[in-house]
């Protein structure tokens, strides 16, 4: 046994030393954030420019890539490590600025004017990460490695205490591992919030030799991308969590279900699986413990309902992904009829930290009912777009205004949409609500997988609701009538209202439909589908009335209910709008106020986009 323990720690120790060296080498190091959002903003060009510059000047500077540090708004982000001095993040970089940054790094200097913050050490005139508003109220637990390590490097993961948890768990009895999870209070981060420890213990106690664990990486909620970011940024944490889950329930085969839309996440997970196998952290006799576990990646093909666990199982089995009635729950009869645990990416990435730091450490964060932290994707009409990880119990106002920096262009906050298509729209007066499962549900919304889309006064609540029903109408699998027909009917009524053909009695019909769909649908897709409708009817009824009675869209979104005009006070007569109008609907001479012909206008908004003086009014 002692021999086993030595070889076990031997592998980890040598990888740890290697990782420490590559995170903080003796030379300077420049790291480019290259997750999907960084790449979308030109990170590849920046990486190439830096490599080129370093090679051309024959500099002793290491060049690496990492994933997403969460502050997507200021991508592309570049980190510069100066040994013994500081580690600094630079924002909104360009290839030209990067070349200059290389030169400054070679001189051992920081570029104060482009810096966002320091993440290690200090540099004069640059705030520390903990001091800037976007990060001040955040608590990085699950995302602690995202953007800080190379996601391809198992050594760097281990250098930041990776695989200590698996090593510890393998020395525990499986029941002890489950007890630890139960005590931590962790609840599933995919949306339903079921206690993770309980789920594991059901599967553990279910009879059967063959059991399965599945990582649900089918992040189908439009507007949420934390699972992508975690898989791209800390894939080994997900894998370690899945391995611990397998050990706890007694499974030797795991599956990782990823989205077709996330090629980079899949690449990172593939690489993590290969590396873990290479070092005996996956496969036969893991760390010499006698425990065998293997993982296979399956790729989805684009379907929202596959996030539902019984549909996901059917999808892996190659069948049509129609949800099944529960019970039996997958923990008793799941994949191929065997006991199966399905956990979401974020949940699994939390597991190693709970095992390593203890249940008490985890449960010290959060609220009475909801422990720990949660990642939210804060997007839409918000100044600081990005992924934020916060302790449960923080208020929505703190998330939107303190972390998010409020609404752009000085506009007015209208609502925050929480929980994706299954969630609801929360108005200004509820912003002081603490965020946890119960409080959000009491508002009629859900936490869901953590999408938070902010809407301002130019966002139409009826249109937004119609958008969700459009989505759900398409994604409903069609198996049960309440969901299939109810969503379609509600969608058609909403469309009428947005087209100015709504009737007053429609609101009552919508309310009835919503309750029928909610109460009688087979799975959670239908069960939560009406939330956007119910919350907008509850908090934004005036907007429905404006559409129905006054035939007016207050936000200026619904095409059939708005008109475009030129503001004579602001129009300088520059003719830009005349040039872009595809209908030839705008007339006017140079330096004279222009006029829009309402007969010809198709309300495409081209003039609105083109006018630099905000002289186009939407009414």
């Amino acid at each position, binding site marked *: 046994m002692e021999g086993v323990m030595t070889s076990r720690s031997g592998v980890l120790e040598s990888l740890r030393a290697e990782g420490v060296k590559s995170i903080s080498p003796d030379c300077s190091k420049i790291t480019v954030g290259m997750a999907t959002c960084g790449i979308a903003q030109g990170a590849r060009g920046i990486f190439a420019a830096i490599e080129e510059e370093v090679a051309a000047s024959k500099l002793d500077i290491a060049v690496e890539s990492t994933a997403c540090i969460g502050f997507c708004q200021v991508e592309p982000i570049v980190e510069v490590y100066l040994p013994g001095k500081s580690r600094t993040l630079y924002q909104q970089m360009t290839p030209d600025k990067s070349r200059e940054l290389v030169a400054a790094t070679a001189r051992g200097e920081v570029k104060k004017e482009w810096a966002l913050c320091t993440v290690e050490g200090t540099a004069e005139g640059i705030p520390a990460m903990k001091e800037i508003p976007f990060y001040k109220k955040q608590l990085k637990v699950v995302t602690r490695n995202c953007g800080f390590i190379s996601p391809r490097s198992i050594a760097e993961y281990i250098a930041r205490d990776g695989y200590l948890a698996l090593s510890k768990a393998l020395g525990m009895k499986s029941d002890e591992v489950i007890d630890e999870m139960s005590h931590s209070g962790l609840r599933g981060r995919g949306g339903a919030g079921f206690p993770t420890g309980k789920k594991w213990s059901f599967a553990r106690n279910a009879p059967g030799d063959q059991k399965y664990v599945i990582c649900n990486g089918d992040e*189908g909620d439009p507007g949420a*991308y934390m699972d992508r970011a975690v898989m791209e940024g800390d894939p080994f944490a997900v894998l370690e969590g899945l391995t611990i889950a397998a050990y706890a329930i007694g499974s030797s085969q795991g599956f990782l279900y990823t989205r077709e839309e*996330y*090629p980079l996440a899949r690449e990172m997970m593939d690489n993590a699986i290969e590396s873990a196998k290479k070092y005996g952290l996956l496969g036969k006799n893991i760390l010499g413990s006698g425990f065998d576990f293997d993982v296979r990646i399956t790729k989805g093909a684009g379907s929202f309902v596959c996030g539902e666990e019984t549909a996901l199982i059917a999808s892996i089995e190659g*069948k049509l992904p129609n949800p099944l009635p529960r019970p039996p729950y997958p923990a008793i009869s799941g994949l191929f009829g065997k006991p199966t645990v399905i956990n979401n990416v974020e949940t699994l990435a939390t597991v190693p930290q709970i095992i390593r730091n203890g249940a008490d450490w985890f449960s010290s964060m959060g609220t009475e009912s909801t422990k720990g932290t949660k990642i939210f994707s804060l997007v839409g009409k918000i100044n600081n*777009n990005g992924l934020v990880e916060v302790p449960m119990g923080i208020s929505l106002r703190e998330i939107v205004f303190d972390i998010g920096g409020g609404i752009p262009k000085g506009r007015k906050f209208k609502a925050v949409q929480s929980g*994706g298509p299954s969630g609801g729209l929360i108005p200004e007066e509820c912003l002081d609500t603490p965020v946890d499962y119960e409080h959000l549900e009491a508002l009629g919304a859900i936490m869901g997988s953590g999408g938070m889309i902010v809407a301002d006064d130019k966002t139409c609540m009826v249109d937004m609701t119609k*958008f969700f029903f459009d989505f759900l109408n398409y994604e409903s699998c069609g198996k049960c009538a309440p969901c299939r027909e109810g969503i379609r009917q509600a969608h058609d009524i909403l469309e009428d209202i947005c087209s100015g053909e709504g009737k007053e009695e429609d609101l009552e019909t919508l309310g009835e439909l919503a309750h029928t769909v909610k109460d009688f649908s087979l799975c959670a897709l239908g069960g939560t589908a009406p939330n956007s409708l119910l919350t907008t009817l509850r908090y934004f009824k005036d907007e429905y009335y404006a559409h129905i009675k006054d035939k007016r869209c207050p936000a200026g979104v619904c095409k059939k209910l708005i008109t475009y005009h030129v503001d004579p006070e602001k129009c300088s007569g520059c003719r830009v709008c005349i040039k872009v109008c595809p209908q030839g609907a705008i007339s006017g001479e140079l330096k004279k106020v222009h006029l829009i012909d309402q007969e010809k206008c198709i309300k*495409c908004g081209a003039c609105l986009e083109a006018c630099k003086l905000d002289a186009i009014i939407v009414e």
Partner: protein
Amino acid sequence: MKELEEALSTFKGNPHMTIPALQAAQGKLGYLSREAIGDVAQTLGITTGEAYGVVTFYSQFRLKPVGKNIITVCRGTACHTMGSLGILKELEKTMGIHAGETDEKQEFTLQTIACFGACARAPVTVTEELGIPGRKVHGYMTKMKARDLVDGLKEKMTEEAAEAK
């Protein structure tokens, strides 16, 4: 179909591999023809009807050939809030086709996606070339950028055609 034989060989007799087999077939052909769906079903040992059911359930699978350039407009919630419907309408007008369609010359396919997961860059449009790995994500789209995007791709095709001559 001869060209699918090799791509499908690893899935022989395994009815659980419907999605991977269909993905492999579409990867090879660019779309799933009636014949290809039949081949997949036969290889896996399921009925053509079952395979067709799976094909039409998922948004990834296509029943028609696609164009050389595929333009995908993200219709996720963040993108919708930031005006992606306007981007889609603009592209439909510029390209003369609707979402889900391919033009006659098979130069362009326009499609939508439920969410690309790059929500902080909303509205997002993704372009890719058929058979060439890697896609380009265009963030903060405007109608003007959408028109420029199509013009740029057209220009590139004209240049490539001239070079080929």
